[in-house]
């Protein structure tokens, strides 16, 4: 496959429905502390009386992409394009078995070929960032679990790292190791689910159940460590909630051995299957330049040949101590993104083994009070989640709640890629391409 793909023109025109916000000087954050927590209407073509915004430097938010024109999201029977040419408009989602939750794609079809794909999001919107402003710092840890609900550990880690920067404290060394182990176990669990859903999207049901069998084993470990299987509430400022219970080391090593035995089985079953190869190779090619320009991260970026991994590029939690490879594939297609994730499982196993071997004695909990009021300031902390760069931007006004908490979620950027990657492919490929982006709508819609 691979007909003509056209990339949409970047929107450089006037942004008439964006209000110019006042730009404050550096260090003006203090001005807002003690103020009533008045919020700005960042976007909208109307002004509220008395809306005299003063706040931190939020000018960058006006570069948010504009919402697509409404007519692009309408579903007509057919659409007239250029003279007698007509295309069928098909509404894929939000209730569709393969849109990974609640993605809605409005597809233009000629025969089965995609002429247009317009992703529409927002069906899982739950005011996450607004809730962040209403909950205490401690409560926000539990809330951040619900962002990317398949990688709760890394979400927590991003938030905890941000607040630790605000508080200017360092976690204990043992806590760092525990965090690394949990992050990598989470990456394995998330990539196992990806393996299963990719197979399911391509019509193979069996690999899905096999990968869930192993994912259960990883979740059993999480249950043993934190008491929960999906949403852990495990990270704490300065450490983790509880130390590893006795026998954790053995349990984790058993799971790693199991995975190492089963991974070749997965490859036999799916990865090197000829049908799988023709369905994924050369499909949904994302060029290196596009991947960078559209803000792709994680396996999607590395699948396009960019060796960028925050664990190497900007190490946190002591990742610089571990020996592992950054998995890169050059071809940029669905196959590349799949293989990057499969190799990352093996690298994660290596990291966990090293961390278990070197796990230092000491306290896993930091000496941080439960009730904190970080000093005013703004910080950005980022981690390499299973889906890519997960950033947490926290603004503190000195109170017990974040003034603003913005999440840079990788899936959001990957879903925006769907606007041009599937064009020229067939309906069956759209499903494969969505699957290869591995979006989680908890973090897309927030």
């Amino acid at each position, binding site marked *: 496959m691979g007909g003509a793909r056209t990339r949409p023109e970047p929107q450089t025109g006037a942004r008439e429905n964006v209000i110019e916000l006042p730009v404050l000087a550096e260090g003006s954050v203090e001005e807002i502390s003690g103020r009533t927590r008045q919020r700005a209407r960042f976007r909208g073509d109307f002004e509220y009386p008395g809306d005299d915004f003063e706040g931190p430097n939020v000018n960058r938010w006006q570069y948010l992409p504009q919402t697509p024109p409404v007519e692009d999201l309408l579903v007509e029977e057919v659409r007239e394009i250029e003279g007698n040419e007509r295309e069928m408009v098909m509404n894929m989602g939000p209730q569709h078995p393969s849109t990974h939750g609640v993605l809605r794609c409005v597809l233009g079809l000629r025969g089965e070929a995609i002429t247009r794909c317009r992703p529409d999001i927002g069906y899982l919107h739950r005011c996450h960032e607004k809730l962040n402003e209403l909950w205490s710092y401690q409560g926000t840890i539990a809330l951040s679990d619900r962002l990317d609900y398949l990688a709760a550990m890394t979400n927590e880690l991003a938030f905890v790292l941000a607040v630790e920067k605000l508080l200017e404290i360092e976690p204990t060394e043992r806590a760092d190791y525990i965090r690394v182990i949990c992050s990598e176990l989470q990456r394995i669990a998330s990539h196992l689910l990806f393996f299963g859903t990719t197979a399911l999207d*391509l019509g*193979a049901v069996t690999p899905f159940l096999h990968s869930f069998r192993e994912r259960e084993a990883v979740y059993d470990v999480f249950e043993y460590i934190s008491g929960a299987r999906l949403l852990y509430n495990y990270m704490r400022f300065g450490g983790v909630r509880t130390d590893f219970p006795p026998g954790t080391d053995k349990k984790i090593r058993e799971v790693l051995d199991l995975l190492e035995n089963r991974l070749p089985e997965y490859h036999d079953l799916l990865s090197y299957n000829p049908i799988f190869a023709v*369905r994924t190779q050369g499909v949904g090619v994302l060029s290196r330049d596009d991947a960078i320009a559209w803000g792709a991260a994680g396996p999607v970026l590395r699948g396009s040949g960019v060796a960028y991994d925050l664990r190497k590029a900007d190490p946190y939690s002591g990742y610089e101590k571990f020996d592992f490879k950054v998995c890169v594939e050059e071809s940029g297609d669905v196959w590349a993104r799949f293989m990057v994730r499969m190799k990352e499982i093996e690298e994660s196993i290596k990291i966990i083994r090293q961390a278990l071997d070197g796990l230092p004695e000491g306290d896993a909990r930091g000496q941080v009070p439960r009730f904190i009021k970080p000093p005013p300031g703004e910080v950005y902390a980022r981690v390499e989640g299973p889906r890519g760069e997960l950033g947490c931007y926290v603004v503190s006004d000195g109170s017990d709640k974040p003034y603003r908490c913005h999440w840079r979620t990788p899936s959001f950027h990957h879903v925006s890629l769907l606007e041009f990657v599937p064009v020229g492919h067939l309906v069956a490929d759209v499903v494969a391409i969505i699957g290869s982006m591995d979006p989680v709508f908890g973090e897309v819609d927030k």
Partner: protein
Amino acid sequence: MPAWLVTLGWAVLKASLILGFVLFNALFLVWWERKFAARIQSRVGPQRTGRPFGYLQSMADVFKLLSKEDVVPARVDRWMYVLAPIVIFVPAVLVYVVVPFGPNLIVQDLNIGILYVAAVTSFTMIAIVMAGWAANNKYSVVSAMRAAAQLVAYEVPLVLAVIGPVMLAGTLSLQGIVRAQEGLWYIVVQPLGFLVFLTAGMAELNRAPFDLSEAESELVAGYNIEYSGMRWSFFFLAEFSNLVAVSAIATTLFLGGWQAPWFLPAAVKGLIPPVVWFLAKTYFLVTVIMWIRWTLPRVRIDQLLDFGWKFLLPVSLANIALTGLLFPVLVRLGWI
């Protein structure tokens, strides 16, 4: 008793036997597929309804389907919508007219049996196109178009693959082909033909990896997306009936039908009745097809068309040429 009454009586009896076979076969296969798929996927499958093996699961399904409300969506093409489940079910039953279950266990041994099979099974696609079009749903329309494209791509290799056994046996009658395999099953001399037939047969059955017209992850359910209750179950019934039909035809053409394996001593052959041999081989093939379904991912429509036209068709033509060339050799060897 007048002669016409006897004929009518026999016809009704045979028709009821076939219908009964089709229905019970579907009940059994629903259960068997669920259990078999469960084993492949390291699950246990149904086990609560009818302990300990869940053998009453399909009965429970039937009662559920029967008790469902009969919904006809508002914007469908009503006549076609109502007719499609019937049209798909009729050919699924008609195929069994010529299937030889045993030396004397056949409804009608037509002398053009294999042509009849090819003609009747093609009807299924008409029903699928009807259902897809009538439902007035874009997904089902795409599904129907896929089915139509698929039909031409695999029907030709399917029929060409059949020519091999016909050449060897020198007859179009299915019973004749079975009798000709007494000394040697045709799978030994026609391995290529058998593989082409099975592959094209799976495409005919709309089963993975060729289940493009009901691709669950792409087209949600495909042509039967707007059907529910008993109307939907007719599609389901037809699918399982066709599954056995294709396996039965493959058994007849390549695996010696109701014949016991040729290498067994005569004393052993007599122990097991022919119909048992036939059913055992048929359900073995059914299981193989299920096995493939639960293992492989789905191909894409253009890949299926490529595969049908550019691979299966040349291979089946080559098979015919090879059969023609080797025919004198085989005769001299006394293999046929």
